[in-house]
């Protein structure tokens, strides 16, 4: 397993993709915006996503 290559392809490659488009900006309204009422875990620490 070439972890270094994975880091370059996925992490650095992703950052390049993200930087290629227009800049995002902070939106004050987001602070008040809540997810849907049925969203979110009951656990205050959150959960994870099962994978392969």
């Amino acid at each position, binding site marked *: 397993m070439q*972890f270094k290559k*994975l880091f370059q392809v996925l992490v650095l490659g992703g*950052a390049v993709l*993200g930087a290629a488009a227009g800049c995002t900006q902070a939106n004050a309204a987001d602070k008040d915006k809540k997810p849907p009422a049925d*969203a979110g875990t009951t656990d205050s620490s*959150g*959960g994870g996503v099962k994978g392969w």
Partner: protein
Amino acid sequence: MTSARRAAAEAWAFRARVEQEAALRFDWLAGVVAGFDAGSPVPAMMRRAADDERRHTELCATLAASLGQSVALDGDPKFVSIAPRSLDERKAALYEVVAACCLTETESMATLTTLLAVETDPEVREVLHAISRDEVVHSRMGWAHLSRESVAAEVAFLGPLVPGMLAGTIDEGLFGPPPTDEDPEGLLRLGVLPLQKKREVFLGTLEQVVFPGLERFGVDPEPGRRWLAQAAAQR
């Protein structure tokens, strides 16, 4: 049925359900991210990823069935958020993206890369190839979103939440002994990592890809590292 075939059938059936859930999450995230970051390429990638995951669901379910296990998928699945309720929508979206893409999709890519480096049955290899082409993008879109948010918003809040992501991602048996009837060669041929290899790939990916990636974009990986060390010590 051999132990490897039975275990592989279960693994592919599980993967089918995982892929179905991922499709729902990416559909939801595409809409939310577009709402606060109109210039981002991520929403379009998320929409394509959702379509990919629906296709992967079919591929995994078909393979599971060919190995002897039919998959009962939810006919009307609903998205269930894993983000803490205390987060606002933008932070919740970032939490979901990091958990699903930076962590889980990155781990999936490491698993796929490992499997594609060994000899597998032709039918399995075809599915692994088809899925790996898409999973590269699914992981990258997570790092793309995190890198954008690290510039525009506050991302440090995620550090203490990484242990929760890990706890929800790691299989209970990851740090335990392998099943007594495990057939490592047979599992690999059918596209499944034996436990020892799975642990090695999972931990290596966290330590050398995920944690350094999080740190690069301003998320403290130390809480995750500490949680992992404790989880491994408890085996």
